[in-house]
């Protein structure tokens, strides 16, 4: 395949195949295929499965219907992130969580430790592989390999059905800002399904993509990456993820702390910025407003589709309005940047 590999949380992962720029552009204009089998899966089921999910997460899983998915936060009591996750509802008594690779075991232990309900929890990452088929041509490519009608699967919904004869969960989700699918199945089918999808998509411009393009795509779409924008020190309010925090659903871990923080006001909030010159902001570079250091870059990179250098950083709320001039310290120089509205990139639907 000619992939450049890197070790990521114990997994050997491809960083890039043909190059980050060409892979990124393929996903924006045609389609890309990512092997994201490193992602973890946790199942929660039983009479009180919903009570456990509601207790440990910030979003309101009670609003889900069967076959629906929500983005949510696995919360500490401080209202910060143990992880950010996708909650899929199979049935009122069965939920399927997709979690970050590096957090899988920690998430599982955390959920079990807080399981004061009649619910079963299974750390089942080894039973699933995952491929992400992303880009505007993803539906027509996938349609070649499945009898499942794809048009009725709305964004953040899933069905179960065969792909290339393999039983899969076909979810209309992604981490790129494009239309597409995340497909879960038993690991023994990985290689065949990977090849079948690439063959089916070759004529549509589908190419294999690595972690490098996955990161630039999610950053252009202003999606958070655990360990960068969010972790155990950042709350849902600070991360601008208020939309996944439903305070009216009843008490959950972190509820009280989040209520307090909301009342007290925020001291920092996640914002997006664009570099004004050619210099590139990178993760952890200091952010200044004049002589005052006001934060650090959480993620910074060239944005291959927008052809700009972009980044995200936690800033004092008074500096977070679009248009605010800030500076990023790059190799000892203060390079001018400007706070901009996020997402940087939004697809035309």
């Amino acid at each position, binding site marked *: 395949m000619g992939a*450049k590999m890197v070790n990521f949380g114990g997994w050997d992962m491809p960083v*890039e195949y043909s*190059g980050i720029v060409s892979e*990124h552009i393929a996903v924006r204009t045609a389609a890309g295929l990512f092997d994201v089998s490193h992602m973890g899966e946790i199942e929660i089921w039983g009479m009180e499965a919903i009570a456990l999910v509601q207790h440990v997460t910030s979003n309101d899983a009670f609003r889900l219907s069967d076959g629906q998915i929500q983005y949510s936060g696995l919360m500490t009591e401080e209202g910060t992130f143990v992880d950010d996750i996708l909650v899929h509802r199979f049935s009122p008594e069965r939920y399927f969580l997709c979690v970050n690779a590096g957090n899988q075991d920690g998430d599982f232990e955390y959920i079990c430790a807080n399981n004061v309900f009649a619910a079963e929890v299974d750390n089942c990452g080894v039973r699933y592989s995952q491929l992400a088929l992303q880009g505007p041509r993803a539906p027509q490519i996938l349609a070649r390999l499945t009898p499942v009608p794809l048009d009725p699967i709305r964004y953040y919904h899933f069905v179960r059905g065969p792909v290339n004869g393999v039983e899969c969960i076909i979810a209309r989700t992604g981490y790129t800002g494009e239309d597409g699918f995340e497909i879960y199945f038993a690991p023994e089918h990985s290689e065949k399904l990977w090849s079948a999808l690439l063959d089916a998509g070759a004529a549509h411009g589908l190419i294999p993509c690595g972690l*490098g393009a996955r990161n*630039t795509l999610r950053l252009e779409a202003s999606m958070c990456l655990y360990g960068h924008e969010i972790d155990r020190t950042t709350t849902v309010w600070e991360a601008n993820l208020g939309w996944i925090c439903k305070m009216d659903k009843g008490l959950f871990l972190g509820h009280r702390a989040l209520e307090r923080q909301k009342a007290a006001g925020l001291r920092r909030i996640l914002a997006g910025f664009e570099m004004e010159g*050619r*210099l*590139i902001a990178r993760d952890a570079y200091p952010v200044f407003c004049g002589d005052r250091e006001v934060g650090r870059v959480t993620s910074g990179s060239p944005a291959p589709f927008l052809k700009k250098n972009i980044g995200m950083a936690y800033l004092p709320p008074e500096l977070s309005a679009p248009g605010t001039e800030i500076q990023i310290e790059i190799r000892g120089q203060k390079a001018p940047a400007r706070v901009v509205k996020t997402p940087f990139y939004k697809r035309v639907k």
Partner: protein
Amino acid sequence: MYPTDYKYTQEHEWVALAGQTATIGITDYAQHALGDVVFVELPKPGAKFSAGQVLGTVESVKAVSEIYCPVSLEVTEVNTGLANAPEKINQDPHGAAWMVRGRATNPGELSKLMDAAAYQAFIAEKEKETQT
């Protein structure tokens, strides 16, 4: 692939000496490891460097990498075209994408660098490390 009249460093720069004039760039191995190069920052003519000092910076989409000066140098010429076409570093790293040219102030230093055969053996060893 690796010109036999160039010398190479462990940090993946090359240097070609003609009389007292040294031309410096990064190797094909380096450009491949970096991936799509999107930015390059180079010194101005007149700048002086001793061997091993940071000469400039090259950035790909995913990484930042410093360029070390392979030999003590007084810069006389900079490949300014690279600023607007950094992708040339991926396309022709040993030729059109040379970075700086100057007077080697201590040409004896070149003898400490690797020749093409030694450099190729060096990177073959590196490849093996990353595969295991």
